[in-house]
């Protein structure tokens, strides 16, 4: 019996190591002094922090990180605001057009962005927003809204009716009820949506690559992709850059795992 349990544990640990191997390989390649050896060593013989130091002192990369942070902050703020407002009335009110708006929210999740990126580009260039971070914030907000609306809606629907009726009798305005009663009750949903939205923005490439041509305004994903196919750059350098880029979402994933998993399962299953 015990033996079987230990075998199971061992099996599970081996599987996780296999799955996580590419991440380990990125780490090792970023600190390995000489990756161009044959055969490659699973554990590096000599390590160096030079590549990672180069990455975090690279001004271009810092600028790209800053741009990504700005886009993430802007998108998350607007997403939380628009998503919670919309989801609240979609979940709690009956009004004409309710079902139609829900259909809009659902069907937009189905549209591949590659199909609409050209018309959006034309639209953005008409209003002069190409090459601005606003272009990304506007498009990323819409990109992330369907999922967040869905998550918010499922949270609002779980709140008992009585709370709202009591507040109404006390003379609370409708917006007051939303702001001071409903929102504080769904704080975990706010955290979940903020994290998932930030992940999506951090991950987004197509819009960032298409709408921003000026390399000073690139996000980190566009910036790193530009190193591809440049043979001047060693794989160690590229892996160090990649590590700097991926370390942030990885850390958040480990620290706030609970919120992320809750959001994924709620968003998909409900």
């Amino acid at each position, binding site marked *: 019996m015990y033996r079987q349990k230990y075998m199971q544990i061992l099996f599970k640990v081996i599987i996780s190591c296999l799955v996580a191997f590419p991440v380990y390989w990125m780490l090792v390649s970023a600190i390995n002094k000489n990756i161009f050896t044959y055969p490659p060593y699973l554990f590096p013989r000599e390590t160096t922090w030079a590549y990672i130091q180069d990455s975090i002192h690279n001004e271009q990369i810092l600028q790209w990180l800053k741009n990504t942070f700005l886009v993430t902050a802007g998108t998350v703020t607007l997403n939380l605001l*628009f998503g919670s*407002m919309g989801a609240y*009335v979609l979940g709690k009110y009956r009004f004409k057009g309710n079902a139609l708006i829900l259909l809009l929210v659902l069907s937009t999740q189905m549209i591949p*962005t590659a199909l609409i990126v050209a018309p*959006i580009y034309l639209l953005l260039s008409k209003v002069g927003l190409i090459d601005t971070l606003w272009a990304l914030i506007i498009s990323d907000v819409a990109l992330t809204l369907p999922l967040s609306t869905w998550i918010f809606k499922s949270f609002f629907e779980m709140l008992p009716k009585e709370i709202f009726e009591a507040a109404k009798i006390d003379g609370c305005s409708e917006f007051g009820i939303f702001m001071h009663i409903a929102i504080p009750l769904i704080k975990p949903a706010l955290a979940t949506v903020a994290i998932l939205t930030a992940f999506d923005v951090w991950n987004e490439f197509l819009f960032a690559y298409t709408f921003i041509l000026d390399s000073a305004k690139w996000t980190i994903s566009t910036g790193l992709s530009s190193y591809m196919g440049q043979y001047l750059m060693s794989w160690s350098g590229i892996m160090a850059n990649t590590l700097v880029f991926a370390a942030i979402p990885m850390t958040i994933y480990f620290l706030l795992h609970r919120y992320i998993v809750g959001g994924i399962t709620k968003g998909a299953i409900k």
Partner: protein
Amino acid sequence: MKGIKNLKRTSFPYLMVLPLVTSLTIVFLYPLIYAVSLSLFREDTFIGLGNYIQLILDSRFWWNMFITLIYVTLYFIGVFVVGMFTALVANIHFRFSGIVNMIMTIPYAIPDVAAALIWMWIFDYHYGIFNHVLIKIGLIDTPLLWLQSPSLALISVLIATIWRLFPLHTLIILAAIRAVPDEQYEAASIDGATSFQAFWYITLPGIRKILSILSVITVVWSFKRFTMLYLMTGGGPSSASEIVVIRIYRVAFEYFNINYASTMGTIVLLVLLGITTFYFKITKEEVE
């Protein structure tokens, strides 16, 4: 006075959804309608269905659709097999098993561009670990050009893409497995069922509904996958791994033929619409 208050009451929900609807309209709905109308023009002249006729005769487009079908099918199988397997493994409980589960689902936190770069390094012809390991265990004799050869490019990108995306399936299937009531397993074990029987007769039927929702999401979302394939092969070599969304993007931004790109986009949209309608029809019948 009362009239104004009434107006305020009825307008409240509309004011609240206004930002949401505006945002989705500007970025999704309007561009979509715009794209459909663009598909009816060549430059600035209206040509009706001219682009669609050109498309039917475009053998490369049919190749793109064929490659897309293969891509979606293999992706679907891969992501479900790996997702189901890892979900069952993740369901093994012990102290600190939560941390092991996090490690097992870590690709979820790796951005597409980072995942593409990592796998390009792994697939590197000269120094990549993939070739090395395969030679070492005797599966191949000489290193292979994974991303640069027509027969291997698509499968290589699929390996990387499935690695990047399966954790979503793991987490959703795991949540579903855990929602199956324990009593059923207890009853089965009293009856002397093997663990495979328990999986086949209790777990699978218990998570069937979620699996069917997940499967349609998987198909529809696989059309959204652009970044990794675009970066790793760019649809190449020549057009060996050119799925339809890559072709659309290239026609729009490399050949600047937005009209023709929109025509292909409209067709893909109709296909997706067909898939989802078909799905909802089937599930409705199942419920009834």
